[in-house]
Structure formats: C-alpha cells, structure tokens
C-alpha cells in the first residue's frame, strides 16, 4: 500500500477537513445528499466516539445489584468506574469496578483461568444473583471462550452469569448497545414462553409498561415514573436505570415498551415485540412539547377516557407551574444561537425542539451514532444553513461554531473545554450530570442551565 500526503504550505481553512469526512458533513438547503452515518470512524480524524465496550458498559452498568466484571487489562475498568450519575433505590454493587486486570502472561497463555478464579472470588465475596462479564479488545483477539466460562460458572453457582460480547474493535459504540441488549435478552427470557401464558400474564397486569433507554441519571426515571403513576400507569421495569435482577425477570409482563434513548434500546424493543408480542413506541421527555406529546401518546395507547383526562389535568397543572419562569428565560435568551454535538440522534432531535421553546435557534447539529432516519428528521427540523454532521471532531466543531457564531454548545465532557476556549457557553448533556433534564422540571433545569452559561457575567471579560 502506498499513501502520499500532499502537504499544502498555504494556511487555508480547508485543511481543517479530512477529505474522507466530506460526506459526513452537510448544510441544510445547500445540498440534497444525505449525511453519511453509521460507519467506522476515519483513522486520525480525532473522532469523539468511544468503542463497543463503552456502549455495552454504559447501557448495562445501571443494573444495580449486578457484578459488572471487565475481562481485560486494567485501563478499560479504570476509565469506566462509576462515571455516571445513575441512581439506585437499593443495591450499590454496580458502582464498583471489577476487572480481571490481565497482565502480559494472561495475554500469552490465555485469560480463562483468571476469569474463572475472578468469578469464584466475586461469588464468594458478594453472593450476587447476576453477573455481567464484558469482553475487551484483548479477549476478542486471544479468543478466550467467554460463553463457555460463563456457562460453566453459571451452572456451578446456580446464578446468572451473562457474557457481553463487547470487544472494542468489532464496531462502534452502537454495536456495544446491541451487545448489551443481547445480554439483557438472555436475562428477561421467561421460563414459559407459550403465547397462552403471556396472554394470561397480561390480563392480570393492566396498564403496566416498561421504560427503555433511561439510565436514571439524576433521578430522571423516577420523575417520569411519578408522572405516569399519577395518570394511572405503572412502570414495570426501567432499562436500565435503577433496574435489578428481580425486576428484569418480570420484563415480559408489560403491555407496552416506551423508548427514550432510541440509539441504545430500539433493538431491544424490536426483539421484545418479536419474541413476546410487546408493542413499542418512541417517546421523549426532553422539553415541554415532547413531554406533553409523549404523555398523551402513552395514555392514548390504553384507549381509556379516564386516563386521558388525568393526563390533561397533569399537563395543565405542571405547565402552569413553570410557565412564568420559562417565559422569563425565553425573553432573556431570544435570538441566541446554539450548536449541538451529542451521542444519539434522538437526543439531538429533542434538543432542537427544546432550544426553539426557549427562543434559541440551532445552527449546528451533530451526533456520534445517529442513524439515517434520525438525520432525516434533523434535516426537516433544522433551519436553512444549519450544519449537520456525523461523528465530528474538534477541528470541525471549532470551525463551524466559529463560522456560525454559536453562543453555546451542548455536548459531553470532552467538548466542554473546547467550547470554553472558544469563548462559547456550554451545556452538559452527558452521563455524569447531577441535575435532571427530563420532564417539566427538567425543562426548567435546562432553561436555567442555558441562562446561567449564556448570560454569565464571565463573557464580559473575554
């Protein structure tokens, strides 16, 4: 293979772009072609994405009473140790980071023995009912038989030990979501799967739904649970915020699956529909409009007047409580411009709407793992001239935020210092935040946070 670099000595702005990335960037109204997405990151492009292991770990880790054992060298466990704000109403076991801490000799001679011993030690110490064993890059390469070890130990101890096929290189973060969902499917498999049994179970449990794709960051799942309870709907299991082994086992009792984080959980919902006949719908509790619409759609599903009336009552009350506050923020923020760079496409869509609710125009939208249909919706919602990009890098973010004169960026931890260095306000929409952004209360928190950063006195000094 021969590759040739043509280094241009003139300092042109064009050089911020890697040619292979051109199809991943578009501007609404300027070109018809779709943004290229759902592909591997370009080498050396400084992608903001993570790996398969990361995707699997973020989805499964909120399961509170499970042992999460990383089979690999120490780094993978070091960097993912309790880095999120997922809350638990019970066990705190999930907040520990367990690793087989593979060393050179384990890589050479194989790590299965060490894994077996680690499982023995952890069962002995914690007596868990459930354990996830995550594979990492090395394990995928040296070929440790995770399935066999987990099966053997599972039989030996009579507990569920689930292998998670999450070697870092076998795809991107989205492949990790899928690996996590596959692991979950192994747990929720009911003992009796005849359709008769399912019908019977359902007839006993009216208005019970599962909530997928909420990780209970800063109590967000509990907030939504409160709303739904008030209108007469019980949440059966949350995937995976504040979920535990006992709860997961009842997952097939639900009549409906609602999905907040589409990227991570649509696959699970589809599988549950296919296997257990549970229908699903995408909802969003980010922003007032989406929250209202979602509550109405959920209530409507049950075809019950009383339920729908209660929903309207709740909406009217909650909305009136926050109207004045939001109105004030909107006045302050009117005319500001926002840039979005988040993990999933569904979150980006909700954020565009949410910014519009508080008088802010979105001038740049990007995601790490958005899918084609999500980019279609983003393109529909965006105003002309909005830059849309998939799997962006700091160089592109810098260029477009500057070019579009964005007043704020919403993103994750890595993007924060970049925004600040550019003199741009920043909103944390990441997994370690400590305040809820869901539901009516979340909409107020969001506006408050936007105001606190966009209108901060600090910008006077830059």
């Amino acid at each position, binding site marked *: *293979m021969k*590759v*040739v*670099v043509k*280094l241009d000595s003139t300092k042109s702005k064009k*050089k*911020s772009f*890697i040619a*292979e990335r051109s199809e991943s960037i578009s501007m609404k109204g300027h070109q018809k072609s779709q943004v290229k997405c759902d592909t*591997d*990151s370009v*080498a*050396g*492009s*400084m*992608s*903001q994405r*993570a*790996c*398969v292991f*990361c995707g699997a770990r973020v989805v499964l880790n909120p399961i509170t009473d499970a042992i999460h*054992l990383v089979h690999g*060298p*120490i*780094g*993978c*466990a*070091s*960097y*993912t*140790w309790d880095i999120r704000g997922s809350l638990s109403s019970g066990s705190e076991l999930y907040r*520990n*980071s*367990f*690793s*087989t*801490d593979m*060393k*050179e000799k384990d*890589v050479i001679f194989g790590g299965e023995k*060490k*894994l077996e011993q*680690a499982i023995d*030690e*952890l069962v002995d*110490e914690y007596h868990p009912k459930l354990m996830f064993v995550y594979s990492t*890059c*090395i394990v995928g*390469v*040296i070929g440790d038989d995770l399935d066999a070890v987990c099966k053997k130990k599972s039989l030996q101890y009579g507990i569920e030990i689930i292998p998670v096929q999450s070697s*870092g*290189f076998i795809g991107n973060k989205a492949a990790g979501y899928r690996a996590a969902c596959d692991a979950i499917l192994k747990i929720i498999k009911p003992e009796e799967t005849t359709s008769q049994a399912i019908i019977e179970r359902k007839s006993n449990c009216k208005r019970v739904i599962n909530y997928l794709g909420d990780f209970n960051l800063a109590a967000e799942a509990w907030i939504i649970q409160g709303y739904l309870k008030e209108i007469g709907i019980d949440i059966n299991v949350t995937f995976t915020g504040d979920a535990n082994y006992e709860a997961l086992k009842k997952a097939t009792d639900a009549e409906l699956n609602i999905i907040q984080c589409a990227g991570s959980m649509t696959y699970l919902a589809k599988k549950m529909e296919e296997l257990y006949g549970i229908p699903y719908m995408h909802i969003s509790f980010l922003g007032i409009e989406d929250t209202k619409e979602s509550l109405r759609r959920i209530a409507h599903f049950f075809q019950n007047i009383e339920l729908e009336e209660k929903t309207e009552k709740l909406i009217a009350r909650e909305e009136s409580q926050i109207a004045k506050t939001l109105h004030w923020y909107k006045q302050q923020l009117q005319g500001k411009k926002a840039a979005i760079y988040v993990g999933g496409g569904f979150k980006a869509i909700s954020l565009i709407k949410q910014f519009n609710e508080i008088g802010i125009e979105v001038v740049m939208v990007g995601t790490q793992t958005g899918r084609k249909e999500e980019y279609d919706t983003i393109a529909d919602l965006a105003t002309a001239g909005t830059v849309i990009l998939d799997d962006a890098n*700091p160089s592109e973010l810098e260029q477009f935020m500057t070019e579009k004169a964005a007043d704020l960026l919403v993103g994750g*931890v*890595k993007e*924060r*210092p*970049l925004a600040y*260095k550019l003199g741009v306000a920043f909103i944390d929409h990441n997994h370690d935040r400590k305040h809820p952004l869901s539901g009516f209360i979340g909409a107020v928190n969001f506006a408050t946070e936007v105001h606190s950063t966009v209108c901060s006195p600090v910008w006077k000094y*830059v």
Partner: protein
Amino acid sequence: MTLNYKSTNENPCNMCMPMGGILPYKGIEGAMVMLHGSQGCSTYMRRHMAEHYNEPIDVGSSSLNEKGTVYGGEKNLKQGLINIIMVYEPKIVGVLTTCLAETIGEDVERIVADFLKENPDVSSTIIPGSTPGYGGSHFEGYFTTLRQILKTITKATQPHEKLNIIIPNISPADIRELKRLLDTMDIKYTIFPDFSETLDRPYEKTYKKVPEGGTTIKEIEQMAGAKATIQFATTVEDALSPGKYLYDTYGVPLYNLPIPLGIENTDLLFETIQQITNLTMPDSIKKERGRLIDAMIDSHKYNAQGRAVVYGEPEQAFSVATLCLENGITPNVIATGSKTTKLSKLLQPGLKRKLVNQDAVNIIQETDFSVIRAAAVEAKANIAIGHSDGRYLTEKEGIPLVRHGFPIHDRVGGQRLLSIGYLGTTVFLDRITNTLLENKYLHYRTNMYQEYYKKAKTI
C-alpha cells in the same frame, strides 16, 4: 472487611500504559500524539485528561476496526498519520501502541519507517513507542515514553551549562513553581517535559489547535550536552529512567531526587543545585523556607493527630509520605496501584527515624481500592491524600480526602494544584491541616458525647 482476591481488581488505583504515554507529548512544543488501537482508548483518555486539566485534549486514534485487527492495522495507522499531519501540522507525532496493537503484533517502528519512505514530503518527526495496556501502569507508560523520546531526538552535542530537569507527572502549577525557583537563581535549564503552558492555557481570543509552549526539539536534542540532569524519579527502575539513559549514553551526571515536596525534599534540591552550580539559596527563597517552618510550627500539634492514607503513583506517594512524616502525621497506609520494588525500601529509613511504631505503617504496591479501603478502616485513618478515585473513602468510610495527583475529576482545577517547593508545600500543608481540623470540629461534640456522657450514663 477481609478480601482475598488473587484474580480480581476491585476499583483500580492505576490506569494503563498508553495513558501515561500521552502526557509527555503534551509537554513538547508542536507535538501531537496518536494511539494505535480501537477508538475507545483515545476517547477515554481524552475524557480523563480533559476533566483533570479542564483543557481540550486532542489525541488521535488509528480507529482499528475488525478488519484491521484481523489483517493488520498498517493501513489505518498510515491513514491516521496523514490526517493528523494534515490537520494539526505537528512538529512531532508520537505513536503509542495499545493492548490491541501489541496483541496482534503490530510492528509500529517498521510501519512508521515505511510511511516516511513513502511520504518524503512529511517533515514531522514520528516517534513510535510501545505501551501495551497490560504491560504496566500509566506511571511506567510515562517514563517509558520520556525515554523513547530522548532516544529518538537527543544527539551528541557540545557540552553546555544548562541543567536537565526531568519531571514526573506533577501539575502545570508545580512546573511553573519549579521554573520560578530556578529563574530566581538565574539557572539555565531544560524542563522535560514541560506541559505547564499547554495544559493550563491562558484564555486568548484566537484558538490554537496545538497550544503554544512545551520543551522544544532543539532543547531536547541538546540535553545530551547538559552539565547535569536532575530527575525527580527515585522510584523509577533504571531500565525506564530517562536520566539514566542520558548518563549511560552521553555521560551526563544524574542526580535522582524525590519530588521537591516537603521541606527535606526541597532542601535536597537546593543542596544538589549548590553541588552542581555552586549557587547558594537566595534570600527570597530562604524567606519562603522560613515561612514554611513557621507554618509547620503553627500546625504541628494538629498534624500530630493525623492518621493518613496516602496513595497514587509511586513517586507521588513517596513525596507525600515524607511530607507526612516530617510533620508528625503518621502515614498509616501508603499505597500504589503500580508495581514497584523501590517505594518500600526508600521509605524505611524515614519510618525508622520518625515513628515509634513502624509496624503501624502498611506499604502496599500493585493494589486496588478494595484493599486500600480495608487498610484505611483498620488503621482508623482520619485523612486521605490522593487522586479523585479515592473519593469513596469519604463517601463510604467518612475519611476526608485532600485531592492531590492525577486524575482529579470530581473537582475543578487539577491543573492549578500547587504543592512543590517551600511555597507550594506551605499551601499544600495548610490544606492537609485544615482538612484534619475540619474533620475534628465536625465530629468533636458527637464523639465526646458518645465516648464520655454515654459511657458515664451506663456505668
């Protein structure tokens, strides 16, 4: 809590080799760094560093996918180099391996040599380095990389008067303090690596993708001709020691010292400087030393009640433990996640000289926080000193934590933590003493009530 783990690490106290290898490149002028491995490694490490330094941290990845893993990652690595060179126009590109690249047996040196042959236009110096994630902790990754950089860039040169100052992972604020001290004495020096500007940048109107600052290539080249090397790496094995490399290859005299944290370690630095340059401590620094002693007197009785858990990289753990000892704080637990034979040996004389009960001190290497936590509880520790990952000692055991070292990811300002020299030690010691006092006052009333009132009542 008695744990008997042989094959499990519960809550790691260290990170991996490539993580340590990134940092030196952030301290060299115009350098970029790239990891040869899957995308997750670079993302995680960028995130970790961005949180600690509160700075944008660009670290490339060859984004190895399944195909690259099966058939070799040469194409990805070369493409990655092209893209990084095009966008960042770096003077140096460090290429570090990860577990993945090492396990599939990538010959990074050969690939880089081929790349340079195929691309004669490339003027960047490319430095390949081996940092398998399973080969050691971030501590070894840091020094291995420093040594690799020296091996690639340094060349035999005319002797000159400058001193080489080789530093471990200390904060940008500490590096600036070190420079201030040396400048005050009018000493000419090369700090290697110097991330004091790049990882603690002032706000400025125009953003630069590769921040200004760092040791220049020319300075590194000339380290071979320096009058002497002062290296703060007493716990580092000779095979990894950059200073030892300069001594072995070019005969540069090596003075291997502890981090100048604490009065004894800082004195040692000034004694060494005097030995090398004949320069004595200027009055302004003498005053700083005097103020530190004054501060030590002010707080000595409070500190005498300290039972500390000290943890982190071996070099940091050593200097903090000596600071504790010279202030009457018992370092009951001294722990590191790294493997080290030297830490315990180095600590023995101090422990012998200063403690009635040396058996009360538990020195643990290659450990994790399940062990540290159990040891802390057993020692009835009332203070912990170390990085953010020990925050559970506070949350679960009520032991207050003075944040020090890397990473600090649950507080702002890791890059501004000052702890070296007489001035830095004074500031750091005050933080420790005040944490002890806060903890004492917070529990004083309940403790005395429980201990004496309740006891008296039940008699």
